[in-house]
């Protein structure tokens, strides 16, 4: 399953399938991007990050892809599990050198058993 973030804020996938969550970021000067997972009633939890000098980074079951040409970021989750159901946010440091992050609206991922 695939989402385009702001235009499709919900994504439903079958357990075991791969998920792709997309994010369009706004500032070409941003040099650091993070994906967070937020479960109901909890704070955002760090998943994976990537710097602007990279175009791909892999973690455990997750891969982040960065396309600076079109200012697009995606999070791929392999073999999606029920525990992956949450809202996923991309965040960027619009002001490199500052310490704050700008978060997108988020995409709700629902895994169907």
């Amino acid at each position, binding site marked *: 399953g695939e989402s385009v973030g702001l235009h499709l804020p919900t994504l439903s996938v079958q357990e075991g399938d791969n998920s792709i969550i997309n994010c369009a970021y706004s500032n070409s000067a941003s040099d650091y991007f993070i994906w967070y997972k937020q479960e109901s009633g909890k704070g955002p939890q*760090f998943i994976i990050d990537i710097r602007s000098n990279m175009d791909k980074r892999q973690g455990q079951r997750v891969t982040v892809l960065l396309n600076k040409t079109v200012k697009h970021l995606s999070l791929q989750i392999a073999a999606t599990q029920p525990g992956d159901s949450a809202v996923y946010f991309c965040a960027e440091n619009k002001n490199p050198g500052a310490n704050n992050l700008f978060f997108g609206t988020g995409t709700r991922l629902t895994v169907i058993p």
Partner: protein
Amino acid sequence: GAGVSQTPSNKVTEKGKYVELRCDPISGHTALYWYRQSLGQGPEFLIYFQGTGAADDSGLPNDRFFAVRPEGSVSTLKIQRTERGDSAVYLCASKPQGAGYGYTFGSGTRLTVV
């Protein structure tokens, strides 16, 4: 403790009242952040502390909002003359010095102004 602790977890207050929200960061974390998250939105930056001082308060929406961190550990976010539009989840995060953006969030305080 093991994580960032925020109290209370829920706060209901009447319009016009004053509220204080508390954050206990992870022990030893020098950097502390406050974010605000409205329903269906991503967190929005409010203020950042490095040690005891507010290094960046550019996200505070107006002068009704103020935060302190007097001993470089616990922080309190203070909101005066609360308005219904202040209703949101207020998130605190902390990180060690030099850890980039890899900060750890607490579970937040849900503030409801009625």
